[in-house]
């Protein structure tokens, strides 16, 4: 239903930028990285190799040095963003698409939702990384399974989050007021409950992306999921892990820093959104 | 009050000046993420010996901040300035360090706030909280003695079976009892001055009256003074001798309760007093 009156929104974004410079820088970094990985002309072909130019230290010619096959680490780190970030985003999207409706169901009253949550408790007792690894590797290392694995890890989190949030919202006065007005359950859900969980869902989504980046890196570190020659940060860390011992730190180093920065950016964003949500609406 | 309680200021009792607390030009500024706020802008007030000074004003006008400012209880993101804060027996405490303030708090000034449950540590027994207080002020009182003192204090605030309260925890108390425990704690070291920040808000009317009777008794019977923050004009009218009216971080009117409430001079005070509903009268509603 269209709102008869609506509050202006642009203001919120401006405050976010102003009061959370960390998050702003983080988002700018992610956007730049994504754009660069998709469109920017990289100094070298990220999949190219050059046998006679292996393991060169960072310098003017190769800003981040070269790896064991003579590939340009800078180009590879940048271009790895493409697959790593898009998998993370796809996994997060799938988690949302599955998790939100289930979360809504789980926050209903009654036994069914109770049991769903109990089942989740048991499920969350599983070693999730091991499960994701088993899922991807036993299914023949398909990339879409990485997305599924991320969803598998995160859907329960969304469900629990939605449930706890909605259950406490249901106790709140304005829901009671809506019932007293004669609002239908559908109206209560979509007009009163859901809009009030978006903030926290957004926070969780940012955290989920951060977590997904780490999960993807962990999987590729173990050689599962994204595989060479497609550059991926986890794969580069694995590739460079051995070289670290002989002093060639830059292969794993820069890839690891890329992961760190992305995760940091999304964590910051989550903090900022959480802070704004709390300040505006609570 | 019990004889067991420690009265460290007894020797100074003879030359207690007429004014127990004298605050001049107190101002507080607080840095927040949204900018600096100045909830208190130059407040003057004084509490005389043996009186209850009421402080009224609408929500957010700086009542709590004023008394926290006097005791330097505001967080590190705040700045408190004052020309002078004279506390009887301690001189000007406006320049006191946190460490010096520790000696003042609890010993020279007792403090009671609105939410008694929130004021008590939920994890420790009540007895332990009495003992921690003794320890903090280095009174050299043993655990046993502390318990005896606490028993006497609880008895003094009208608690029937104080042993059971002492061995229990805060959540096992009713609101009225919890507030009594807090008052007992606040007066254990016999501070000559009590700050009470809305000590009865949220309590039932009957309980509220009991608590007010209790604290006014503590002032009357033991020669204490009290600064009582409230937004209930009934409380002011019934229990206070003098009243300070605050508005927007400033004192707008001060005087005896009778003067201020019967013949208010400041427009805000007039509006405040006019807004108490009186049956049969049309409400004095200023939009």
């Amino acid at each position: 239903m269209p709102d008869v009156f609506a509050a202006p929104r642009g203001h919120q974004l401006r405050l976010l930028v102003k009061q959370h410079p960390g998050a702003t820088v983080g988002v700018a970094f992610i956007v730049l990285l994504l754009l660069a990985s998709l469109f920017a002309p990289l100094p070298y072909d990220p999949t190219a190799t050059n046998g006679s130019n292996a393991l060169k230290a960072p310098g003017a010619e190769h800003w981040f040095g070269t790896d064991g096959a003579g590939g340009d680490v800078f180009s590879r780190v940048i271009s790895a963003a493409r697959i790593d970030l898009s998998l993370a985003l796809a996994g997060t999207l799938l988690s949302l698409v599955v998790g939100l409706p289930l979360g809504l169901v789980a926050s209903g009253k009654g036994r069914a939702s109770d049991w769903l949550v109990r089942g989740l408790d048991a499920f969350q007792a599983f070693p999730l990384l091991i499960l994701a690894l088993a899922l991807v590797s036993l299914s023949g290392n398909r990339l879409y399974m990485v997305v599924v694995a991320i969803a598998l890890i995160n859907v329960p989190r969304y469900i629990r989050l939605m449930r706890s949030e909605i259950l406490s919202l249901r106790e709140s006065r304005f829901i009671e007021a809506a019932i007293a007005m004669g609002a239908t359950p559908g109206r209560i859900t979509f007009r009163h409950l859901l809009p009030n969980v978006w903030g926290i869902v957004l926070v969780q989504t940012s955290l989920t992306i951060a977590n997904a980046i780490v999960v993807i890196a962990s999987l590729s570190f173990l050689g599962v999921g994204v595989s060479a020659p497609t550059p991926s940060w986890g794969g580069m860390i694995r590739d460079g892990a051995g070289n670290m011992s002989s002093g060639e730190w830059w292969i794993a180093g820069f890839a690891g820093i890329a992961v760190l920065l992305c995760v940091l950016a999304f964590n910051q964003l989550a903090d900022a959104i959480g802070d704004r949500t709390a300040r505006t609406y609570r | 009050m019990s004889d067991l309680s420690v009265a460290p200021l007894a020797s100074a009792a003879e030359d207690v000046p007429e004014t127990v607390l004298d605050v001049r030009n107190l101002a507080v500024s607080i840095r927040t993420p949204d900018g600096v706020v100045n909830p208190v802008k130059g407040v003057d007030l004084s509490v005389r010996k043996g009186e209850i000074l009421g402080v009224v004003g609408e929500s957010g006008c700086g009542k709590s901040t004023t008394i926290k400012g006097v005791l330097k209880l505001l967080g590190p993101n705040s700045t408190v300035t004052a020309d002078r804060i004279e506390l009887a027996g301690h001189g000007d405490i406006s320049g006191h360090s946190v460490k010096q303030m520790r000696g003042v708090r609890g010993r020279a000034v007792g403090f009671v706030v609105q939410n008694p449950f929130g004021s008590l540590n939920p994890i420790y027994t009540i007895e332990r909280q009495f003992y921690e207080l003794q320890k903090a002020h280095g009174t050299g009182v043993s655990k046993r003695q502390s318990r005896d003192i606490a028993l006497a204090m609880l008895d003094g605030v009208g608690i029937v079976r104080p042993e059971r309260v002492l061995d229990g925890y805060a959540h096992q108390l009713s609101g009225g009892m919890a507030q009594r425990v807090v008052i007992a704690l606040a007066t254990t070291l016999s501070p000559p001055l009590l700050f009470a920040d809305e000590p009865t808000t949220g309590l039932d009317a009957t309980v509220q009256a009991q608590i007010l009777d209790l604290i006014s008794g503590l002032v009357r019977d033991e020669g204490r003074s009290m600064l009582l923050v409230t937004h209930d004009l009934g409380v002011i009218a019934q229990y206070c001798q003098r009243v300070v009216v605050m508005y927007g971080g400033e004192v707008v009117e001060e005087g005896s309760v009778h003067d201020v409430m019967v013949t208010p001079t400041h427009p805000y005070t007039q509006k405040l007093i006019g807004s108490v509903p009186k049956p049969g009268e049309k409400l004095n509603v200023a939009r």
Partner: protein
Amino acid sequence: MSLVEISDVVKTFAARQRGADPVQALKGVSLSVDEGETVAIIGESGSGKSTLGKAALRLIDVDSGSIVVDGDDLGSLDARRMRAKRADMQVVFQEPFESLNPRLAIGSIIAEPLQIHRPDLGTTEIRRQVVQTMERVGLPEASANRLPGELSGGQQQRVGIARAVISRPKFLVLDEPTSSLDLSIRAQVLALLAELQQESRMAYLFVSHDMHTVEWISDRIAVMYLGEVVETAPTRQLFDAPTHAYTRTLLSARLSADPRDRHAYKAFAGDATVRQTSSEAST
């Protein structure tokens, strides 16, 4: 027959804590409210005042007893008819901010009852009525596009009232609508409620702690004690000649805001764990 007839209502809550006894919040309460009448409910905390208010609106289901509003027994209505019926009965809560959806603009909040019950009205008409109601309760039109968090407590409570009255209900439950407001604002809101009632002859069930307020606004007062109505009387009569002991205690605990009539406090021997601090105790 009064507009609202509450008879023999019993409500027991399962204990909130495992192992504790269930709470009998209402032990057979009967009460009626007439058109244009304000009936106040007073009593100490936990005596069941709010529960009664909610039961009267069927916001909670009762164990037994009946609630008849304008000829309809609420207990016999199915969910759909109950929702339709809610156009006639509304509520204003104590906590103004918590009663408003923090994500909706003030205008939308106020428009909601109309959107629910009068979908036939077009957006323009709804908008017109919202603006009109806002003006009536003293809210600037410009605040229609603002969020609840941007208003003061008094304004928030006006929003709550505007929302409650826009669908022109016949019966309004006011659960301590002013106790979280500052004194001066409280007076304004009370005056507003009185005016609105005069205009549309609504029936008010007014839950309150505050004797001054009750004394001023209500026609009749019901005193609740431990889930029961122990005394019901017209306001003046109750204040002048309380019959029940608990009522007397309540009255004696009332503090006059006039320093000229200071009087001694009379304790009520209800709280056995606390020794009486004042001489005179009555039962």
